[in-house]
């Protein structure tokens, strides 16, 4: 039996039951019974407006679940309806992209001094895209044609030859560091730079370098001055 056919979620307005989309009705009933019983006296005496989503129910099924909730939970079930707010939210999202962009400016990832970090082991090859909401460390090379993006800092423990985008949701304080910094294109926040045309594309300079932005200009310098 699928024990995850039903998930409970407490909301400001009461309780939302998330039903697994492809779960059979018997599974839902059984899973619901287990969940209610394991909650023990938690619901007893409460007044709940219950909503459900994730799967449509017909009239009979809805009635049966409603009765089950009344009988087993011990709570006073005020209502039992399908939750429509989720769908509405999804509909309004694309139209408000512009507003989201504005919000983004103030809510970009700030954990560049200390924050969540992803470690990627291996070579990132052409056509591969690594994105992460946080800092990103690649233990390997990044080849031309590959794209690595992170909302925080990016450190490559190898040769960086692909496209790199640090602070991808707007943080211009983010940095890019690599043991060999030869990116096709380097982006920090909304600043986009590329290497000069006269330089050969297949660089093999293995000098540990660090790129950062000051006053909307990109600077690259060694981070181990003695080497």
């Amino acid at each position: 039996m699928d024990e995850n056919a039903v998930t409970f979620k407490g909301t400001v307005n009461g309780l939302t039951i998330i039903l697994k989309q492809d779960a059979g009705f018997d599974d839902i009933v059984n899973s619901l019974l287990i969940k209610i019983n394991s909650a023990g006296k938690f619901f007893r005496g409460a007044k709940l407006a219950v909503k459900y989503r994730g799967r449509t129910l017909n009239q009979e099924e809805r009635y049966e679940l409603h009765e089950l909730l009344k009988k087993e939970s011990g709570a006073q079930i005020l209502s039992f309806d399908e939750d429509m707010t989720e769908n509405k939210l999804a509909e309004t999202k694309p139209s408000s992209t512009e507003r989201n962009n504005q919000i983004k400016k103030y809510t970009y990832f700030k954990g560049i001094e200390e924050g969540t970090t992803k470690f990627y082991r291996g070579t990132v090859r052409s056509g591969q895209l690594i994105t992460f909401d946080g800092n990103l460390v690649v233990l390997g090379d990044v080849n031309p044609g590959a794209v690595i993006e992170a909302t925080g800092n990016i450190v490559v423990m190898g040769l960086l030859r692909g496209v790199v985008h640090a602070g991808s949701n707007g943080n211009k304080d983010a940095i890019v560091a690599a043991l060999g910094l030869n990116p096709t294109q380097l982006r920090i926040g909304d600043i986009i730079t590329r290497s000069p045309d006269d330089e050969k594309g297949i660089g093999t300079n293995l000098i540990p370098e660090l790129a950062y932005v000051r006053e909307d200009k990109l600077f690259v310098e060694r981070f181990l001055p003695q080497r």
Partner: protein
Amino acid sequence: MGEVIVITSGKGGVGKTTTTANIGTGLALAGRKAVLIDTDIGLRNLDVVMGLENRIVYDLVDVVDGVCRVKQALIKDKRYDGLYLLPAAQTRDKSAVTPEQMINLINELKSEFDYIIIDCPAGIEQGFKNAIAGADKAIVVTTPEVSAVRDADRIVGLLEANELRNPKLLINRVRVDMVKRGDMMSIDDIIDILAIDLIGVVPDDEKIVISTNRGEPAVTDDKSLAGQAYRNVTKRLQGEDVPIMNLESEDGLIFKFKKLLGFKTT
């Protein structure tokens, strides 16, 4: 209204991308306004051959998905005015674009450019269907190899099935010495099989490798034989009547010496 030409071949590695870059640059040299569209999503090369890889911010998939406007994705060539590249996406695959979206995109570009050159991926699947969707004309590239000619024949059939009549044939990487020895198919052999009009014959040329790696199309090199061949192709595309270059007479010094000394040269 611009003319839309798809460069295709069926087989990989016969020189579609090189041809696209050279024809596009040749047209720009002649003062025409041209845009090159790379439809090889996931295995893009045209940007590298053109030396424009590091300028890519938006790509074909971004345009059809509405992430950006067409003009934002067009990359201006670093040498010639009037030459633009619309690069393919590298981190996606062919199914990211549909033929209908390609037609819409091309219609949008038609009013702006004299020529729209589409670089087709190898194969006859989704990528091929996308590439030929909006095209008015086709150039089929082949090399003098049985396998390449076989694939070219298949492509000619598919183009005709998709209402693209009278495709033109471009024979690439011809080696005159090998043809003479009978080790390579001759131009006539290939035309006998495919039975379509010839638009150009490009000799095998070391300089192509050099120029491809440098990101500078060979058509700009006056000394390159292949460059000359591509210049002729662009002239023919613009309606000029240029005879097919006689490769045998261009053998150079050795040929002249042999002639001088009375050796048989044919």
